[in-house]
């Protein structure tokens, strides 16, 4: 459990020497409790106190990091059950499973394609995080790993028995893959491997009791970087288990199961999308899909982005004038808000149309068109203010301003606020902007 400021104070030297930058040890302790400073700022803490403080401040769900080629997939460190309570921090990694029996050429094809995959969502490039290479045929495993590594730098999960894993790891260096999996039968051998190669280790067991038994044994062996496999049960079962370990960690500070989890999504006919979607909403740290397809990954990557945004701050773009397709003095001015989703829906359409446009982005405090309108953050006054503030009048001679169709009601007022401008009402949805630009303007 996290310690209070007073409890922390008792572990400090209590000399008030001020070297930490605070007038008293107590003041420093209060800041530590609020997690606003680092313990290392005090040079005089005893080793004993350090251990106690580190334990108490360790996150209830251990941070696990899988690394390769300068890339990193992190899971854990979460602090809440529901995103509105604060936020979810570490987006679960999405991995594509590659079976060694597939053969070297097919593996290279698949991995090259998935590795190169990139989809733009509100200005961010979303990608596949890594690959889970499985020794479904032991003899082909090292070849498979080499094939995967020749096609991607991304972090890996290795799936196989202890012999396969060992041979696999011998073919990889300078990275920290995630190894799958230690179970009741092989945990000692797996622990040795995880330690020797400094990898994180997945723990697999039928029930939470089994898992807890294994993590305790592994901790004694010195393996702390663990990930829990909650198994391939029905969605209801998966939901129950992932909720239970999250609760145990966050509400009970139950360190034995205070680890992120891994989920396999391998159903057919779109069921894998559903399994992965559940895993995104309900606490998974690593998600392994059996296939790669853009129409599967795009929605999942977007869902993950949505669930893991900070509920306190809408993602915004800078208000101002955006020049799209090299606008000239007679190009139209389109006005919108600075909510990222809104801005990018419009900007992408305009860009796609190939037609030159000045896009005037007003400061609507990061709200969508209708939300901002309803909240009084996108009205004729604000629109007129941005027109003046950003000096768009100096750039255009035609003075044609297009409003979003959803706020057609504003057109009269905007006309009054902006004499000399022709106010036009555009379509409601951004999809229809290209044809509007071509045919109506």
């Amino acid at each position: 459990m996290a310690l209070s400021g007073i409890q922390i104070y008792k572990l400090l030297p209590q000399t008030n020497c001020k070297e930490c930058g605070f007038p008293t040890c107590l003041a420093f302790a209060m800041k530590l409790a609020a997690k606003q400073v680092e313990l290392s700022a005090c040079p005089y803490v005893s080793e004993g106190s350090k251990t106690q403080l580190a334990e108490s401040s360790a996150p209830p769900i251990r941070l696990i990091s899988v690394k390769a080629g300068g890339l990193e997939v992190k899971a854990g460190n979460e602090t809440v059950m529901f995103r509105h309570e604060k936020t979810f921090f570490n987006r679960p990694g999405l991995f594509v499973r590659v079976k060694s029996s597939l053969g070297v050429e097919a593996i290279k094809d698949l991995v090259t394609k998935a590795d190169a995959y990139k989809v733009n969502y509100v200005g961010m490039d979303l990608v596949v995080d890594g690959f889970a290479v499985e020794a479904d045929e032991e003899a082909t495993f090292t070849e498979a790993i080499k094939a995967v590594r020749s096609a991607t730098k991304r972090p890996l999960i290795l799936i196989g028995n202890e012999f396969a894993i060992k041979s696999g790891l011998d073919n990889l260096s300078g990275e920290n893959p995630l190894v799958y999996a230690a179970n009741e039968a092989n945990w000692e051998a797996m622990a040795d491997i995880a330690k020797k190669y400094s990898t994180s280790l997945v723990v697999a067991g039928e029930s939470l009791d089994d898992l807890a038994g294994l993590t305790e044994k592994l901790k004694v062996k010195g393996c702390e970087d663990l990930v829990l496999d909650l198994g391939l049960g029905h969605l209801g079962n998966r939901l129950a288990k992932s909720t239970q370990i999250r609760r145990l960690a966050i509400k009970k500070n139950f360190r034995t199961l205070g680890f992120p989890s891994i989920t396999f999504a391998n159903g057919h006919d779109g069921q894998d999308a559903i399994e992965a979607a559940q895993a995104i909403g309900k606490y998974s740290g690593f998600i392994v899909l059996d296939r790669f397809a853009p129409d599967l990954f795009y929605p999942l990557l977007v869902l993950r982005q949505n669930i893991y945004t900070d509920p306190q701050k809408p993602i915004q773009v800078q208000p101002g004038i955006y020049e799209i397709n090299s606008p000239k003095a007679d190009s139209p001015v389109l006005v919108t808000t600075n909510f990222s989703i809104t801005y990018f829906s419009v900007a992408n359409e305009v860009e796609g149309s190939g037609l030159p446009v000045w896009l005037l982005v007003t400061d609507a405090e990061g709200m969508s068109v209708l939300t901002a309108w309803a909240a009084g953050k996108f009205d004729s006054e604000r629109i007129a203010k941005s027109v003046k503030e950003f000096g768009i009048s100096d750039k255009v001679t035609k003075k044609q301003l297009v409003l979003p169709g959803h706020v057609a009601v504003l057109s009269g007022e905007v006309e009054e606020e902006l004499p000399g401008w022709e106010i036009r009402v555009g379509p409601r949805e951004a999809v229809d902007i290209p044809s509007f630009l071509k045919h109506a303007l």
Partner: protein
Amino acid sequence: MPIEIPKDKWPGTIHTVTLGATNGEGGTRSKTVTFGGETTMPFLQFEAPVPHKPVVAIEIKDHKPEDWSLLLAEVWGAAMTDPAEWAKAAENAGADIIVLALSVNDENGNPTTPEKAVGTVKKVLGACGLPLIVFGPGQVDLDNELLVPISEATKGERIVLGICEDKNYRTIVATAMANGHLVTARTPMDVNLSKQLNILITDMGMPADRILMDPTTGALGYGIEYGYSVMERLRLAALQGDTMTQFPMIVTPGFEAWKTKEAKVGEGVPGSWGDWKERSINWETLTAVSLIQTGADIVVLRHPESVKRVKYAIEELLMA
């Protein structure tokens, strides 16, 4: 020593609501649908049993909509031109409930008249045995003008009349009360606004087991995170004992998802978006499945393949 699983014990319960009435109950439906009754967060069966499962409604229109995705036009085919045929097709596609969304204008571009709207509702009721939800076109005066005669003409059927909003709920609630129907109350993604509207409707004397609430949602990629969290907060408030949030939730992921470019458009989009059909189905399905896990009791969908997948997800979620 076995691990002790922390369990939440909530004081509140969601109202159990039944939609539709059979012959014996004063209606003509071949079956009724019951949902709600939850005493815990969605599907946590280690805490409490799930008394009724969430259900899937399919949205149909009074005539063929011009602005729906081509994929929807393709899959429903000719049935789209006739609400009765469309309702039958929706029943065959696995819908538990039909949502009939009325339009401002009829197929000839003339304003929808009360006679025409009543006729459409009767046709739909005659063509299929499922319980019905009717949404007005969404304009205050026109909604009242159409929904009142519909309510009267279907007395005893236990249909749902929608959509009650803060500016327009009195007439709809009054006619629903008088004719034994239910109402759905929509507010824009805000816990307090939901509560306020529910209070207003309850104050008129509407029994609690005849109210649904629609907290509004956004589609995947277009604001779903807001709806998602508002629904979780509403459900938590309800379980904590706030009586004005203890109504089953209905949301419209089909409407939201099929508005997005990802679902609507197949050409001139980035290659990284993948196959159009599969992407659209995923867009609708994932929006719906995510919302079911926040507490949705009814999801209104548009594509039969999404219906199939979402129903699969519900069955799976019920299996512990």
